[in-house]
């Protein structure tokens, strides 16, 4: 008791934090229970009827859910397969700039878009890709690539390319930071020795730069892969519209739609979706973390 009294200030300092996580993180975990109930707000969490795995069974029979699940995995996988290597290449190219101020300038501007919200990004790109007077359409038409303005934001086939492009525009510069930091840790003498041996730039990149950051690449790839069920809620919600909703619906946005549109009716199913996502996410994280530990040994991290 005396010991507790001596630590009264530490306890006082930590108490708000304890309560914060209790209320905002641990209370909602009770949602696991809701997902096994036929949830009735009037009866509450404690008295609603239990229905076992019924909600999950309903879930897997729902076309909406299956569509959202497929979209989520497809969009995440596309981002991982196309944008991840692009980010590494971008970092390598920045690293090859030999003029100090120019390298700094490119790097600094490249992560400007990262700090604005997706609401802003969507507003800007809706305007740029607009059909009447959008800069992109004006440019493509005047160059003769398009005969008439193309309605980018209302085309089902154009949606994924636009999503990938805007994602790269917004986040590539920022994601490249870790690789650039890792590249700067490579010993300059290695490059000098390679030059003596007559290795050209591409050989230097291939034989020195890439192996030098191999572990960071593997580690970041694995960490990114563990977010397979997070396809980018903010981006999907802000960039999509009714025309492309079939393509744009991911698990996160479907749950949000259930909450906003279905009201009380959607609570049990919506919760089951969230729990499904949380468990798969956790499983992916554990597997990926295990793989990352194996790959970590001599990375800079």
């Amino acid at each position, binding site marked *: 008791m005396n010991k507790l009294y001596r*630590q009264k200030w530490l306890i006082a*300092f930590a108490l708000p934090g304890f309560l914060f996580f209790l209320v905002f993180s641990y*209370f*909602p975990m009770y949602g696991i229970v809701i997902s096994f109930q036929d949830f009735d707000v009037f009866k509450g969490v404690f008295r609603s009827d239990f229905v076992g795995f019924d909600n999950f069974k309903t879930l897997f029979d729902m076309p909406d859910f299956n569509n959202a699940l497929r979209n989520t995995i497809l969009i995440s996988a596309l981002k991982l397969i196309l944008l991840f290597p692009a980010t590494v290449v971008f970092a390598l190219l920045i*690293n090859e700039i*030999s003029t100090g101020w120019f390298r700094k300038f490119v790097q600094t501007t490249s992560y*400007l878009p990262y700090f604005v919200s997706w609401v802003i990004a969507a507003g800007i790109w809706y305007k740029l890709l607009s059909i009447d*007077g959008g800069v992109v359409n004006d440019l493509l038409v005047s160059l003769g690539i398009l005969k008439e303005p193309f309605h980018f934001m209302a085309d089902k086939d154009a949606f994924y390319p636009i999503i990938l492009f805007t994602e790269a525009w917004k986040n590539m*510069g920022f994601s490249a930071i870790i690789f650039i930091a890792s590249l700067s840790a490579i010993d300059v003498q290695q490059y000098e020795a390679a030059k003596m041996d007559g290795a050209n730039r591409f050989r230097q990149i291939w034989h020195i730069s890439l192996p030098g950051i191999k572990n960071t690449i593997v580690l970041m790839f694995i960490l990114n892969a563990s977010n397979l069920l997070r396809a980018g809620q903010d981006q999907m919600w802000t960039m999509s519209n009714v025309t492309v909703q079939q393509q744009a619906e991911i698990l996160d946005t479907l749950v949000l739609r259930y909450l906003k549109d279905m009201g009380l009716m959607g609570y049990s199913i919506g919760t089951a979706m969230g729990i499904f996502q949380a468990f798969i996410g956790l499983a992916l994280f554990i597997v990926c973390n295990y793989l990352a530990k194996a790959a970590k040994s001599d990375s800079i991290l």
Partner: protein
Amino acid sequence: MNKRKPDLFAVVNGLVMLLFTFVCIYPFYYVLIVSFNDPLDAQRGGLYLWVRSFSFENYKAIFQTSELLNAYQITLFRVIVGSVLHLLLTAMFAFALTKKHFVFRKFLTWWMLIPMYFSGGLIPTYVVMDMLGLVNNVMVYVLPHLLATFHILILRTFLNELPAALEESAVIDGASDFALFWRIVVPLSTPVLATVALFIGVFHWNDWFSGFTYMTSEDLWTAQNVLLKIIQTNEASNIASISKMDAGFKATVTAESVKMAMLVITTVPVIVVYPFLQKYFVKGMMLGSVKG
């Protein structure tokens, strides 16, 4: 890094990088010039590089619309109150966690780490917020964001690296943990506190999700929410809600041009703080990756 004579590769690479920079900056520049151009003149199109007919009309219209001003006030409220409280609680919690002899240290470390890996999901969170009376309550912008595990980790790492001797001498002089925190720890950690302040400030400024999810009354929306609605309803060519505003704007502005001015007002604060932010990114990014 490695100085080389400019060769073909360097030239091509330089050009590619210039193009990349252009794509990053130009969209912002474009929105800026349209927002400062006369709205009716802007409808003729062809605005690419500079303002053709300078005008403050769009900005005037925004500052005359009470719903927009109200939204910016709410945004400012959450940025200021939310960030100050976040900073205070993060510092206190991280400080307690760095004290090796603290009885609850191990327990509280796990207590904050577990939510990073598992969450109950959106709907149960909504039910909890509802039970707490936070739906349609501005405190929903502040309370659920009082702490973030990632920020606690950044601060904890920093505090662990502070020389122990500083605190030990104060303890010998009979300073309580309370005095230790305010007189030694807080002053010494200003740089890292500034970093966390900028991160949380930008989050509060940018967050649209809380307003969208927990506010059914649009009077309680933040600027990001109003902007999102204008962008989305406009695109669905449902200008019903905007025409109401247009009437107030006496038709000297268009929905499109006001949107551009709103984009500028909502972007500028972030662009102003980001040079300060970027000083600390690399460190933050590294920490973020190690946490796993």
